[in-house]
């Protein structure tokens, strides 16, 4: 069963067709890579999938529910979650609170309960703390739980952002260049983390990445786009030898 079903997705900015009839289907617990040269439209596709942009054409189905015209926050409720190319954490909040914000919609108490500190409030907050701590434990961030997010080193900020995305309990995780700005050792670590997430949290992952070692190393399937169009699809081995891909990256 496919979690994400994209058909003929297109968006036009003035005269520029940034994404042109893009098709994709991601199955349950699958790891798909989305690659392409700079400006190919990868992040635009992410913005379309998460509801930041409204497509001019085409359809997106998340668990058989159309996401077209829905707000980004409502699309999260349907089971997708993302990270950003340039890290976007809640910088002046603690690591634990960063996770708990993402846990917001899974808590159930109203305005009045929070003022009177009712039993429900206490139970729900305690549960949120518990689950947030478990999540931080998986990412080796538990010891930093009371630090402000902005004080974490770069690699850990990336991890926290992924942990935060997972706290919304997604079925598909969209990672936008998770290895950007990382050194080879950190990238190595990240690869292990991504594999771990896939197995432990049972999610599908769609990944944009420039680091070929990472993409070829962990993706089960790769989609290559250039100028908004799909130029190749296949497993890492096929992509590596594909003529169109080599042409797009290196020229003739």
């Amino acid at each position: 069963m496919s979690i994400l079903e994209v058909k003929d997705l297109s968006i036009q900015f003035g005269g520029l067709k940034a994404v042109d009839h893009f098709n994709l289907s991601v199955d349950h617990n699958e790891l798909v890579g989305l690659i392409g040269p700079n400006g190919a439209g990868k992040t635009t596709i992410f913005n379309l999938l998460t509801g930041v942009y409204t497509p001019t054409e085409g359809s997106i189905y998340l668990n058989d529910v159309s996401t077209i015209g829905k707000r980004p926050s409502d699309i999260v409720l349907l089971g997708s979650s993302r990270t950003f190319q340039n890290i976007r954490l809640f910088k002046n909040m603690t690591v634990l609170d960063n996770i708990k914000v993402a846990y917001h919609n899974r808590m159930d108490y109203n305005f009045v309960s929070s003022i009177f500190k009712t039993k429900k409030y206490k139970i729900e907050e305690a549960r949120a703390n518990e689950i947030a701590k478990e999540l931080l434990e998986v990412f080796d961030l538990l010891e930093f739980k009371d630090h402000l997010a902005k004080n974490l080193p770069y690699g850990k900020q990336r991890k926290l952002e992924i942990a935060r995305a997972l706290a919304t309990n997604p079925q598909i995780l969209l990672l936008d260049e998770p290895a950007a700005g990382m050194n080879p050792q950190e990238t190595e670590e990240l690869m292990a983390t991504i594999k771990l997430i896939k197995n432990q949290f049972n999610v599908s992952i769609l990944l944009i990445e420039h680091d070929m070692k990472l993409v070829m190393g962990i993706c089960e399937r790769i989609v290559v786009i250039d100028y908004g169009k799909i130029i190749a699809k296949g497993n890492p081995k096929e992509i590596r030898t594909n003529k169109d891909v080599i042409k797009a990256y290196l020229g003739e």
Partner: protein
Amino acid sequence: MRAKIKNIKDLLIDPRFINYTIIVTIFLVMFSLIQFELVNRYIYNLLVMVLIMIVMSTSLNIATGFLGELVLGHAGFMGIGAYTAAIIGIALRPYIEVDLLLFVVSAIAAMILAGTAGLLVGTPALRLRGDYLGIMTLGFGEIVRNLITNLDTVTNGAQGLAGIPRIMTFPIAFWTTVLIVTTIFLFMNSRHGRAILSIREDEIASESVGINITRYKLLAFVLASMFAGVGGAMFAFKEGFLAPVSFNFLKSVEIFVIVVLGGMGSLSGSIVSSIVLVFLPEYLRDFKEYRYLLYSAILVITMLYRPKGLMGTKEFDFTQLKNKITTFTKRLKARFSKGSDR
């Protein structure tokens, strides 16, 4: 989770108990000072004014400090609250003998009306960002002031509304303030409060983890205006006389300055700076015309050396005080013994 209280010793270190005790102690000390006439009428008035400014600044802090939006029309909501409470107070005085009840009824009406105004202004205004929102709310404040001036039949226009029962005693003002500040504090520590903070930190990220940002922005804005309405009601019953000029742009700026100086996002900061900024201009009276110069200079110096305000985003916590002192003395001792080793 907190352990169950079994004996007196547990009670004494329970943070809730410590906070309640301190609030009640402050109240009793102030109240007895007033009862035994150790403070004069002038100081008494200033004290109530401080409490009103605490309500105004902590409520503005929801919109400006926690949500991070520039709001320059807070006096407008205060004005709506003040006039609503005053008119209802005058009308109901013959029927309600008890001062407290009269205040509660009028304050609730003031809260509802100011909140409704907040909802009406906030819905279109919160689509704007930063300076633009500031200008729009500034415009709103001026509209309110002009409405009050021109609605002669209801508000008695520029001549001012007199004959409001002066029922704002220190105890009523004190407990109203405690109630409001506690409500804001508890609210900010809930999932709703965290959602509002996350919008300040990063709107896009906040939306991407499933926070309905439009709803929470509006909620913060409406809460701020509701409590400002209560602040207005307190002001009306303290002064006994209202004029539209009390709610002009300068009043909004005054409240805004208190929030910025105390620290955007710190309730205790707003409380401290309300105290400072109400008493300071009064005690600078000796300098006559230079006092506003001094007042401004103090603001400039604070902004230069503490740009995040007195408290930043931190809260002052009595229960942590003991821990802080012990760690501090430990550190001193450690340094001392290290020194003697050498």
